């Protein structure tokens, strides 16, 4: 009864096209933003910022990047980590080699370079479909990692290709404290998240979904498929590039090419599968699941089973439980956590009645 649209009359298309059409959704979103920007920095501690909230936000952003490509445009990819690496290493080099380049601008340029790299590795998708596109992105994954490991120039000749975060100065503010890094990440992710939510309901987003659902039908109504696919690769890789920079600079501080290996790509793929393909909210839910659940489980395991099992077994046991939970979730809800949320809100809208009748 609290969550319903009774009394909210929409009389203009502008109002109908708002991001959150229901007043309750808008209020909820503003409250969430307010608590993330004000309450959390005030109450949170360094452990939460550094070990949970920052990786959660960065992985959500990376999920968004992959979701554009896979969830919206229907192109499978296993090269997410490669585009993150390109973003991080480019941003590092821009910052290092261009005197006085602001930190945010370096990150942005890193994203642009990642986007261009994405376009190059997206070119084969114009001729091949489905699982075969996966192979081309897999090539990106191995090629990029090889380049950054073997050409020391990219890491300023450091041993084993490690790069270190530049000073996190934004508009004269030093944001290197955990709370500062959290706020920096949160600001970027919020801005890009809002942009993402608007991209997917723009002409471009609808073209992506048209190509995903039936590319032949999309072509015959005049959608330029090559352009649509390449833009998906470009924007997806741009987001992943920014996520890579944040991963390197606000989360880890130092990173080597190995940090962006294929396991990271899989992790991001799992985030969007668990969270929900073709959903912006899903990226956040999936990332929360991937980041929070192992932490929660290790706490439970350490509390309950530490004397019973040795630590090696315990760690493997957690992985087994985690894997089974993922499978269980996907059987229960193949469209991901976002779909559970959607069903829940739909039910909430008709509650205390049972259903919508047409």
């Amino acid at each position, binding site marked *: 009864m609290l969550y319903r649209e009774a009394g909210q009359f929409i009389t203009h298309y502008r109002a109908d096209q708002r991001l959150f059409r229901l007043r309750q959704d808008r209020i909820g979103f503003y409250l969430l933003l307010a608590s993330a920007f004000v309450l959390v920095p005030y109450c949170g501690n360094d452990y939460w910022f550094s070990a949970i909230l920052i990786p959660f936000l960065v992985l959500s952003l990376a999920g968004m990047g992959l979701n554009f490509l896979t969830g919206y445009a229907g192109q499978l990819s296993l090269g997410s980590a490669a585009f993150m690496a390109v973003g991080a290493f480019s941003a590092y080099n821009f910052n290092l080699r261009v005197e006085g380049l602001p930190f945010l601008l370096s990150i942005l340029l890193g994203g642009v370079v990642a986007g261009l790299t994405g376009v190059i590795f997206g070119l084969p998708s114009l001729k091949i479909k489905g699982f075969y596109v996966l192979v081309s992105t897999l090539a990106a994954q191995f090629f990029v990692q090889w380049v950054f490991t073997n050409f020391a120039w990219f890491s300023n000749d450091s041993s084993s290709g490690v790069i270190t975060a530049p000073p996190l100065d934004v508009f004269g503010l030093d944001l290197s404290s955990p709370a500062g890094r959290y706020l920096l990440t949160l600001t970027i992710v919020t801005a890009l998240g809002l942009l993402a939510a608007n991209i997917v309901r723009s002409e471009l987003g609808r073209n992506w979904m048209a190509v995903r659902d039936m590319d032949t039908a999309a072509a015959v109504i005049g959608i330029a498929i090559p352009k649509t696919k390449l833009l998906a690769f470009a924007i997806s890789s741009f987001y992943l590039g920014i996520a890579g920079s944040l991963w390197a600079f606000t989360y880890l501080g130092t990173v080597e090419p190995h940090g962006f290996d294929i396991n990271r790509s899989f992790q991001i793929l799992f985030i969007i599968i668990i969270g929900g393909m073709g959903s912006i909210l899903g990226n956040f839910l999936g990332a929360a699941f991937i980041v929070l659940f192992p932490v929660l489980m290790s706490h439970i395991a350490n509390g309950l089973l530490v004397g019973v099992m040795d630590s090696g077994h315990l760690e493997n046991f957690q992985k087994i439980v985690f894997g089974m939970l993922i499978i269980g979730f996907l059987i229960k809800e193949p469209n991901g956590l976002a779909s559970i949320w959607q*069903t829940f809100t*739909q*039910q909430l809208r*008709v509650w205390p009645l*049972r*259903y*919508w*009748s*047409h």
Partner: protein
Amino acid sequence: MSATPLLSIKNIEVIYEQVILAVKNISLEVAANSVVSLLGANGSGKSTTLKAISGLVHAQRGEIADGQIEYLGEVVNHSAPHRLVKQGLVQVLEGRHCFQHLSVEENLLTGGYIHRPSKAKLNAQLDNIYGYFPRLKKIRKSLAGYTSGGEQQMVAIGRALMSDPKLVLLDEPSMGLAPQIVEEIFEIIKNLRDNHGVSFLVAEQNAAVALRYTDYAYVLENGTISDEGTAQKINQSGELLASYLGR
């Protein structure tokens, strides 16, 4: 209708995604050796009703929230589709859905394995199908994807008949087909009922053709049954026309 119907549905209600009500209070019966039609406009609930019977609604996030479906006197609300096929209840989906990259004959064969028949039985079965649809015999080696719409519909029906069913649920067999082909298909349905003891529950928009071959018909409107009766009765009452054209 006869004392023990082949299929009997009592007051079913189907809900998709837990909140969207698709059909409610649907009750119908299909007697042995009969052709029964479900008529109605787009979105009236014909396909949902058929999928509820065959167990396919569960795959589309639907559930039978209320009521009872009895097939051969047994409640089958929660039976898996493949078990129903084994018991002789098979559905032909709307829009044909042939296996495009298999030949016509391979398509038919895929429908025949459910009872694990001997080679001889399978070939006899295949001969039967070619007997009903002589057209298919001529194109038996062609890829199904390259055959015409009418031929694909025949392949889909033939494939269902390969399982030796008692009851076939046919969803829009006339969709996108020339009137002559539609007539041909309904003639075959009639022949199967008269001479081979197969019953049909046919969901159709093309009421004019369907009623000519139908023993009993139900008119669906907005998810409920608005009229029912013999073909003659339906033709005479204005209910069918009203359900198509609005009141």
